[in-house]
């Protein structure tokens, strides 16, 4: 088979790995790519005869770059030799998130409490007014409300 065709398949595969690994720490990314490149080179050398099919089989068995990268991204060492350096923006992002949460809670309290009070107050006022209107029903508008002592006796 054409040697360059095999090389092109491998290069395309490693490009996909590199693209999938864009979010990885650069040294991890390069390490992963170099491990995979090494695996492919060794496995190719072990093919009885190098065919395009054989190379495709090697790449298929390595699997989907996204799955490999997910494994590289998620896994924590069983016992880390040293604390891995955090991405530079990790800490601010965390504190930003905390600040946002606090702000959201404060805003919620500031907005919801007055609204709740207004609603409750409004309901209370409405109830009082309804009662008053009911009580002074029939009286002339503008006339001062009669005090309870001078209120005409209710019809029995």
């Amino acid at each position, binding site marked *: 088979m054409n040697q360059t065709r095999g090389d092109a398949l491998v290069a395309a595969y490693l490009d996909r790995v590199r693209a999938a690994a864009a979010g990885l720490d650069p040294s991890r990314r390069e390490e992963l790519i170099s491990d*995979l490149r090494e695996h492919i080179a060794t496995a190719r050398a072990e093919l009885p005869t190098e065919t395009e099919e054989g190379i495709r089989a090697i790449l298929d068995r390595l699997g989907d770059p996204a799955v490999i990268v997910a494994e590289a991204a998620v896994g924590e060492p069983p016992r880390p030799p040293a604390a891995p350096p955090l991405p530079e923006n990790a800490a601010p992002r965390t504190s930003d998130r905390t600040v946002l949460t606090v702000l959201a809670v404060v805003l919620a309290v500031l907005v919801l409490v007055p609204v709740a009070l207004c609603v409750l107050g409004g309901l209370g006022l409405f109830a009082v007014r309804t009662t008053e209107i009911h009580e002074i029903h029939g009286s002339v508008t503008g006339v001062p409300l009669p005090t309870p002592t001078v209120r005409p006796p209710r019809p029995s």
Partner: protein
Amino acid sequence: MADPAGIAAWLRRGTLEYCVLALLSRGTRYGVELVRDLAADPALTATEGTVYPLLSRLRRTGWVETTWRESPSGPPRRYYSLTEEGRRALDQFRREWVAFRDAVDRVMGTDS
């Protein structure tokens, strides 16, 4: 997909490293050999490629070390071997694993 709930992936996560250590306790192997031995059982690995991030972690942890050796055919191969620390970790895992496995089996009703 055979593992829609991700159960197999979760179960592998804490154990596969030690499977690598166990394979290496029987002798050094080069990457392709090691990866193929592990990936031969689909219950252990999703694909061959997913073993490499794990090997990288084991190197960084200091539980395995690698040496380059010339190959009779093809490029030099990187051989993986267990360090003394890796051997201790494996021994500890074996003890924990037996207790864990037995307890889970009892609760699950999968002991026979």
